[in-house]
């Protein structure tokens, strides 16, 4: 799948979800709106053919770029190399089909970077006759420069450990065929570096000694996949250096900087080049034969949609604009000299419990909380920290960014660790808490939370970054964005369906139960029983062992469960049956769901699929044999020979078998789904309506805030029961629950050091 060439590139970028930022000064915005005013060289690549990319900056002399193929090597099968740098639809395709054996369409799949190395097509500043000319107006920019480019590389790794040149002022002599010719660093240039999975961009600058000084971007943020697998996806690169030596590389406006004072040693003989450094070909001996050594080539293979080079640096404020205000931040606290009163200590402890870390005693929020504590209003004191919609209080950002996030993170993975990146489940928790919506929505709503892309510079393509990967949320995490500021609620959960980037509404959405994070933790492989186990573990605070009931009906236990384990029927009746009667009763709710990990063209995709909407035998559907004629995923009905008379799942119905005397009291079932129902949404509704759900949420919040020894047992104390009742009375508002927990006297008495 290639780009639609009838659509402007900026429209493509906007449609694919790249963020729109407030106009920066001079630089283009991330959707390519705006202009390049002040740029010394600008390339739009809108020539639609020919071999010249014209400099449209208006700054004389124009620095046009010519496509060159000098020194091309024949392909290994002897096929002549084509001129593989083409301009079409406002994009230049550089080395798109390195092998050259297939004619015509540059969007055809390639043969790998080794072929690209043999195909030394590049663009070089040249006059109208094609004779290279030096880039004088850029070579003199030693006091500051900036490159802005929108690029799409074809390979995660481009073949040279030292990086492959995207664009730069190259000094080496080209195509001399002289093995002894010395190479010289670029005056400045942008290289793609890093191995697959850790792709990065590196700004290299030449110092007075002729050595390279470099700054590398944050690894992993540079999407580098083949065009066919990644339609419409460009990465915005900005590299800038000021007169003091501050070098900063932005990948989609995520910055990394360094400063190294050095004298720049720019040569005035450098040429502006795209797609390959000017490295001479070299001969080497290979099994006694002299062959051309291509290993030192620095070919870059990919697409560039827009390129502008400025003879000045840009500050962080100019590049990030108002968006920078949405980064996580903390108040600067100047220590006072006054003695610390006991009430101040109590206030500090409350603030720390609700923000998840030490807070200086002189922090203004601690002072405000102290005043409320002295006035005897503990809930009002807690509201200052958590924020409160009715009171118009914003709260401390770390309440959402740390405390709520870590609470949710622990619930979102199988290992129950907080050391996982932000994901859609954690974001849902944070959003629900901030918006003071009912926590029951966590298990029932057709919604999700993602970043407002006008407020955070993160990858945000629904198909690539939310449905097929966790990129969107990891960018939010790694970029230290203030989640309370940037998250927005969206309705309509989606499921990826085709390679072409299509997705369709989830037919059975159920809040975080159908989130990518929860599904990736519990629906991958297995028999979907883990989904039931962890739904109860996380939202009812009850492990499977405690809800086992051997007196319940075995009618729903699957055919894959041996009724004579080890030849011992008693073992089944007294042990296996207890868990399976409950678990298998519920698991039918998940009969259409699966989480798949599929490699296509060497790229691995991880995604949720649902047999009701995911077609059979398609890229993001179900391969033959993995779903039956009823739309039930085969993994839930396999091993049927183990006990053929067992239950066969044929739909998404589920039955509540946790209704024995002990379980009835434990869970406190209520509502229309108390006995069972159909699908995940009704399963989530059944959990959310129970008294145990509110008790579990109260228990988790209380233990998070008050740090009583957190055991994995399911015990609910009278304090937690009391908080659960208040939680329900508040309309299941998690923020209110945090306030009540922190204000509880039992909590205060045990609050930390």
């Amino acid at each position: 799948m290639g780009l639609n060439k009838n659509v402007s590139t900026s429209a493509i970028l906007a449609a694919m979800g790249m963020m729109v930022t407030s106009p920066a000064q001079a630089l283009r915005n991330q959707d390519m709106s705006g202009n390049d005013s002040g740029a010394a060289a600008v390339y739009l690549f809108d020539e639609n053919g020919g071999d010249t990319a014209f400099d449209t900056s208006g700054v004389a002399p124009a620095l046009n770029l010519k496509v060159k193929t000098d020194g091309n090597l024949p392909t290994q099968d002897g096929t002549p190399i084509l001129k593989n740098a083409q301009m079409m639809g406002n994009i230049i395709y550089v080395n798109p089909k390195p092998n050259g054996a297939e004619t015509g369409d540059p969007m055809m799949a390639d043969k790998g970077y080794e072929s690209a190395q043999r195909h030394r097509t590049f663009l070089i500043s040249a006059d109208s006759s094609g004779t290279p000319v030096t880039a004088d107006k850029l070579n003199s920019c030693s006091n500051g420069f900036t490159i802005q480019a929108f690029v799409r590389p074809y390979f995660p790794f481009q073949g040279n450990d030292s990086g492959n040149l995207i664009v730069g002022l190259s000094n080496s002599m080209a195509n001399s065929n002289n093995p002894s010719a010395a190479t010289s660093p670029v005056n400045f240039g942008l290289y793609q570096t890093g191995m697959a999975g850790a792709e990065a961009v590196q700004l290299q600058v030449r110092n007075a000694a002729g050595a390279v000084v470099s700054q590398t971007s944050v690894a992993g943020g540079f999407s580098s996949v083949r065009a066919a697998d990644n339609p419409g996806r460009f990465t915005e690169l900005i590299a800038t250096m000021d007169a003091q030596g501050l070098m900063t590389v932005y990948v989609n406006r995520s910055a990394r900087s360094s400063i190294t004072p050095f004298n720049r040693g720019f040569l005035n003989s450098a040429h502006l080049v795209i797609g390959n450094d000017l490295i001479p070909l070299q001969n080497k001996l290979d099994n006694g034969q002299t062959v051309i050594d291509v290993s030192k080539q620095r070919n870059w293979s990919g697409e560039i949609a827009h390129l502008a080079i400025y003879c000045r640096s840009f500050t962080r404020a100019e590049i990030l604009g108002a968006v920078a205000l949405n980064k996580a931040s903390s108040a600067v606290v100047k220590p006072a000299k006054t003695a610390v009163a006991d009430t101040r200590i109590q206030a500090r402890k409350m603030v720390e419990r609700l923000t998840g870390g030490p807070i200086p005693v002189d922090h203004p929020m601690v002072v405000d909380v102290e005043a409320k504590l002295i006035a005897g209003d503990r809930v009002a004191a807690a509201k200052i920290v958590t924020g409160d919609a009715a009171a118009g209080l914003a709260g401390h950002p770390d309440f959402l960014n740390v405390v709520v996030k870590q609470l949710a993170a622990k619930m979102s993975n199988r290992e129950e660790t907080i050391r996982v990146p932000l994901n859609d489940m954690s974001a849902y928790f944070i959003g629900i808490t901030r918006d003071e919506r009912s926590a029951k929505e966590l298990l029932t709503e057709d919604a999700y939370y993602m970043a407002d892309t006008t407020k955070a510079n993160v990858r945000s393509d629904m198909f690539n970054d939310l449905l097929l990967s966790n990129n969107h949320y990891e960018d939010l995490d790694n970029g230290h964005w203030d989640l309370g500021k940037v998250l927005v609620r969206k309705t309509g959960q989606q499921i990826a369906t085709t390679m072409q980037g299509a997705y369709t509404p989830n037919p059975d959405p159920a809040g975080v139960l159908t989130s990518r994070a929860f599904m990736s933790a519990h629906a991958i492989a297995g028999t979907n029983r883990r989904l039931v186990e962890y739904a109860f573990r996380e939202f009812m605070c009850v492990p499977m062992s405690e809800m086992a009931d051997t007196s319940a009906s075995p009618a729903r236990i699957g055919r894959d469960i041996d009724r004579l384990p080890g030849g011992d029927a008693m073992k089944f009746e007294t042990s296996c049956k207890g868990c399976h009667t409950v678990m298998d009763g519920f698991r039918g709710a998940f009969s259409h769901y699966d989480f798949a990990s599929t490699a296509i063209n060497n790229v691995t995709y991880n995604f949720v699929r649902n047999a009701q909407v995911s077609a059979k035998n398609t890229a993001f559907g179900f391969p033959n044999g993995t779903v039956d004629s009823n739309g039930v995923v085969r993994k839930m009905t396999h091993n049927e020979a183990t006990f053929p008379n067992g239950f066969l799942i044929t739909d998404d119905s589920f039955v509540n078998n946790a209704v024995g005397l002990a379980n009835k009291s434990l869970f406190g079932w209520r509502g229309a789904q108390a006995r069972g129902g159909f699908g995940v949404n009704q399963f989530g509704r059944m959990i959310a309506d129970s008294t145990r759900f509110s008790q579990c949420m109260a228990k988790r919040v209380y233990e998070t805030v008050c740090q009583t020894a957190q055991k994995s047992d399911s015990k609910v104390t009278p304090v937690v029961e009391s908080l659960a009742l208040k939680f329900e009375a508040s309309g299941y508002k998690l923020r209110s629950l945090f306030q009540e927990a922190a204000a509880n006297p039992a909590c205060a008495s045990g609050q930390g050091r």
Partner: protein
Amino acid sequence: MNQKNYAFRKKVKGVLMAGSLLITSALIGVNCSGFKATADGSGDFGSLGGADKEMQVGFLSSEQMLKSMISVAGVESLGDVATPDDSAIDMTYQQRAGSLPSVQNLTAATGPTLIAVTNLASTVCNKSVNNDIAAGSPTDRLFFQEVNFNAGLNQGAAAFVPGFERIARNAWRRDPTADEIGYIQGFASEFADGANLTDKEQARLLAVSICTSVLSSMDALTY
């Protein structure tokens, strides 16, 4: 931003960490005689306090630690990685995250963890002290208002003590005791032994070391 010093900082990083570790080890345990993890080690939180009272405390997880350090050291924005110091903090955090605690349990306070903590603290303190140096006047500084950063170590250890007290108040959330102040004065004096007393970079390094020792001590890592 002192570019010259920045380059020099890399060279002395090992010395700085070693010094910080020494003083950190001196400060760990100060006022914490009752410090211990839960008996069975199974709880998520440890217990801290005197003999008369058990108190539930949390050991900071990696993310909490980072946010806490930048907060108490007056480094305003974690997300601002477009300056070298901020990038260094972010990079150190990424590099050391695997060694920083993943649980809020005092049993996570192992040797490698504390070294990683010290490393992170030193990069945060580097930024903090550079902010102090860059402040318009000494009274605009957050911590080391009494230090003349152009005077090297000739000014004596006492000039650094008020800065220590201010950092401790932020990071420990209490005023340091006389004993703790004495330890720091002793450290500052020993730091000067054999050093070039007129080298102004030494004054900066001493300030960073003092800050690092505070931020990487147990009182700053628990709540």
